[in-house]
């Protein structure tokens, strides 16, 4: 496989559905990094991920994985790619022993010892049918399968949704371990932003099929901030300086995209650091009635 800088390169992918459009989505996932893909339900995360996996065919745009065309070189790419979904994609009647028999013929680099090693580590039984597994066990099983064929890229669609915090943390630790190898990369979609805040190197926000922000997580958290002021001060703030404003009885909270500039311009205002969740909320709710948006 050729040398590559980005594990995933998406450029301008567009797909129209009845009532929804994925609109010129572009972003890169750098090799050796983990990108959080954030958006509310129905924002276009799964459509984007399914496009990356060549399950959905875009009308426009290109996707390159490991520097290769994701359609022309699909089989080569998928030897080194693992996908993890929120639902277990294996039949209830199967067992881990059975899954090993199936996948060892599918992946050239399938490693039985690694697979059973993960099963032991996760305390998953080998002969119990998957139908009797809990949600957490099913997710661990998927991850064990995903990590047992020397994959260079993990693509996860809402993989930690519905899991309790203990299992989520355990899984996040596995991901960090996986990223110890600089050739490994992860794209992880989720609407649980706290998980991504813990482990992501970069984040991409998507809403209604459009990318809102993409970049390094630290830079995004550094540049964004919540400006707090009174209602009367709010009238003096230029609309282009904030994403949206949350008006309450006690005053106004505004999401600013350039904290340093806002601090200089509005020297009397308090500007607090923010979180990925708040950034998502301010972007997503920018058109709701109880919020005030710069687009109003």
């Amino acid at each position, binding site marked *: 496989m050729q040398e590559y800088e980005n594990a995933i390169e998406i450029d301008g992918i567009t797909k129209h559905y009845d009532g929804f459009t994925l609109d010129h989505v572009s972003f890169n996932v750098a090799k050796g990094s983990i990108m959080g893909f954030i958006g509310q339900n129905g924002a276009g995360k799964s459509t984007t991920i*399914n496009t990356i996996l*060549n*399950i*959905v065919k875009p009308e426009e745009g290109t996707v390159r994985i490991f520097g290769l065309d994701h359609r022309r070189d699909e*089989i080569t790419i998928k*030897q080194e790619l693992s996908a993890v979904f929120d639902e277990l*994609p294996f*039949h209830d*009647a199967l067992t881990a022993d059975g899954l090993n028999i199936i996948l060892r013929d*599918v992946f050239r680099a399938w490693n039985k010892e690694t697979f059973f090693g993960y099963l032991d580590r996760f305390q998953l039984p080998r002969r119990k049918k998957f139908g009797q597994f809990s949600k957490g066990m099913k997710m661990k099983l998927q991850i064990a399968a995903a990590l047992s064929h020397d994959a260079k890229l993990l693509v996860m669609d809402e993989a930690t949704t519905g899991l309790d915090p203990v299992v989520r943390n355990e899984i996040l630790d596995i991901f960090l371990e996986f990223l110890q190898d600089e050739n490994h990369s992860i794209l992880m979609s989720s609407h649980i932003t706290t998980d991504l805040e813990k482990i992501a190197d970069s984040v991409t926000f998507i809403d209604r099929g459009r990318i809102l922000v993409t970049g390094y997580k630290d830079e995004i958290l550094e540049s964004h901030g919540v400006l707090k002021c009174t209602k009367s001060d709010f009238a003096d703030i230029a609309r282009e300086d904030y994403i949206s404003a949350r008006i309450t009885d006690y005053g106004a909270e505004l999401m600013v995209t350039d904290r340093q500039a806002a601090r200089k311009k509005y020297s009397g205002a308090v500007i607090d650091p923010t979180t990925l969740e708040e950034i998502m909320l301010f972007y997503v709710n920018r058109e709701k009635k109880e919020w005030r948006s710069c687009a109003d």
Partner: protein
Amino acid sequence: MRGLIWRQWYLSKNYILTGAAVMAGFWIIELLVFLSLQSGNLSRMEDPDSIRESVAFFSVLLNTVLPYGILCSDQVTEADYKAHWNLYSYTLPVSEKRLAAVKFIWFLICFAVTALLSTGSSLLVLSHTDLLEEDMSVGIVLGMQLVYAAFFWLTSCMTIPLTVRLKKAGLAVMLSMGVFILAMGVVMSVFTAKMAQFLNDYVANIDPAETDGDKIVGELIHKLTELFSGTAVVIVLVMLIALVLAYLATVHALKRRTV
């Protein structure tokens, strides 16, 4: 590919083993009836040979029809959608051609085993009667088996891509049976007309002095067997073409990548 074929077996085995138990039960009943005809209560009935022939005839019919429906039906494709396997399979380094090939290799394995059981059990039953020497030849039995096998084969060839496309095995079976019955209706109409013509010509050419009914029937069966031998080649050819078309249709349906 072996792993994916093993997966077909693993996910079908409960259904197949249950079907095999049903078939075994049926064969045990058959055996008991023949034992009774040989030295039990049925042997003491009036004209046991006639009963034996009737039982044998219906046994052959059931041995032809039952095994295919019980042992050879696709239990996996619809379940794959329900289990989200289809979504996952598109993330594997396996092409649609290979995914479709797995389905058809599994179908051929099931079909071969079923055909062996069906034909073997039928001939075994007939070997214990005088039917083979009298009214039925091995050719006619095999011909009957072939016609039913072809019927099953052709409907399966339609069912597999339709299930992939519609995600519902029941609906796919209904549709393919409907299409097949419609097509068969047309074929049978043509065949019946030609058969009537053939019989009319045959009757017109019978020597009026010939009074041996058995001889006439024997000649007729011989001619029909000859006619069928020619048709059998066409049936096998149609089966092969249907298989190739079904495979291509399945690849096409899988390429739509609906999940």
